[in-house]
């Protein structure tokens, strides 16, 4: 059996009494590609927030690579090998697409190596390749403030890939992308899954079907059910709270 890369034990997050996460127990193996779905407000994004240290759990603990991350700051957690894409694209608007990528690709993120170590040739090729993958080669050198919403989404996915952490947390990667792009992103994630652990959150069920091996459904801050895509899709509780009656298709 694979060792666990990520585990949460009885994690509760409450905001002024409202429990966004409620006694959540979750675990993920090394190298696993896991999809998390669930109704709006189920706590998916909060879950990622907890893992990356943006939100401290009110109770319970999050264990990454065997370490409780509670006492670490955000950037330290990231340096332990977690990367994240935000739900709405967050990129550095005054940098160009390639600079954005370069910033994430940088391995050593303390001050001194940032100052004194120059980037390697191989990094440059890697970034070129990435730009190609996310379809932004032609816009690589304009300020990323001038990108459209979908392009920003893709750029942020690219940044995550450039960072290449052990665990990728991907929050709604294909929202606002065209079907074709959705397909590309799916392929990209599948390819990455060969060497990384990935946690994906998405509402686009086409996409979920495409990549999913194991799906976890969150509801009101705790796991509603877990299983492969067929099981989940046909679970009446999931249909009730999440999928709805897909009458035609």
């Amino acid at each position, binding site marked *: 059996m694979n060792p666990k890369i990520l585990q949460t034990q009885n994690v509760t997050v409450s*905001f002024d009494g*409202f429990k966004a996460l409620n006694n959540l127990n979750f675990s993920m193996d090394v190298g696993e590609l896991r999809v998390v779905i*669930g*109704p*709006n*407000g*189920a*706590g*998916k*994004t*909060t879950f990622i927030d907890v893992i990356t240290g943006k939100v401290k759990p009110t109770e319970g603990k999050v264990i990454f690579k065997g370490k409780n991350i509670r006492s670490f700051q955000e950037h330290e957690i990231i340096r332990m090998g977690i990367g994240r894409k935000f*739900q*709405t694209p967050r990129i550095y608007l005054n940098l160009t697409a390639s600079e954005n990528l370069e910033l994430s690709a940088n391995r050593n993120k303390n001050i001194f190596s940032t100052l004194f170590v120059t980037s390697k040739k191989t990094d440059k090729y890697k970034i070129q390749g990435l730009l190609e993958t996310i379809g932004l080669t032609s816009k690589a050198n304009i300020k990323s403030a*001038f*990108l*459209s*919403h*979908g*392009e920003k989404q*893709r750029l942020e996915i690219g940044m995550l890939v450039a960072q290449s952490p052990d665990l990728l947390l991907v929050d*709604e990667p294909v*929202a*606002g*992308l*065209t*079907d*074709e*792009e959705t397909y590309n992103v799916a392929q990209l994630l599948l390819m990455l899954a060969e060497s990384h652990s990935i946690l994906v959150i998405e*509402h686009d*069920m086409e996409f979920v079907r495409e990549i999913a091996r194991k799906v976890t459904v969150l509801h009101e801050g705790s796991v509603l059910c877990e299983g492969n895509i067929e099981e989940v899709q046909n679970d009446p509780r999931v249909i009730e*709270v*999440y*999928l*709805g*009656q*897909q009458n035609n*298709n």
Partner: protein
Amino acid sequence: MLQISNLNVYYGESHILRDVDLSVPEGQMVCLIGRNGVGKTTLMKTIMGLLKPRSGTINFSETIINSKSPDQRAKMGIGYVPQGREIIPRLTVKENLLLGLEARKNRVRNPDIPESIFRLFPVLKTMLSRMGGDLSGGQQQQLAIARTLMGKPQLLVLDEPTEGIQPSIILEIEAAVRNIVETTGISVLLVEQHLHFVRQADYYYAMQKGGIVASGLTSELSQDVIQRFLAV
């Protein structure tokens, strides 16, 4: 209802929209499709008055509104749900909703939030006193739609309204929008990636590289067109 002709829009020196012609007839639902970055949002913003066209006219219910400010356009009855939600983060959900009333022509006494809104988006009811910015992404999107509906617009401009919303609610939104169009006779201009929703519209326009390249009835929207303009 809405008639756009020969519209050219620039961001600084870069030419984004090129000679766009588009019209939304009264009581109809029109959908705009196109790949990422072709200028859909730009067109929506221009209709709303957030961007100034360099040439061309925008005609809304028989008046040319080129020189009108966004708030005047809102008061004339254009309701806008922007891409990226644009919730006012440090106002409560209730306050966000009440802002929707600003677009009404006559002042509303004793403002209240109609039940119909909550029927469509039940979560909002439980969160009235929460800060708008604290909501989850999908909840914010629902709030954005609800807020615009509060204003009882005549033309609803929706920019990817279903982004980040759970499947069951998407279905409800689709049904609701369809229902609104049919019962109240307002017009809708929709930008959407979900084909399912696109097919609810009466008419479609396909956009590529800043220009309209195809249009027609959605019932005739063939796989071929989709292939050409939505995929490479």
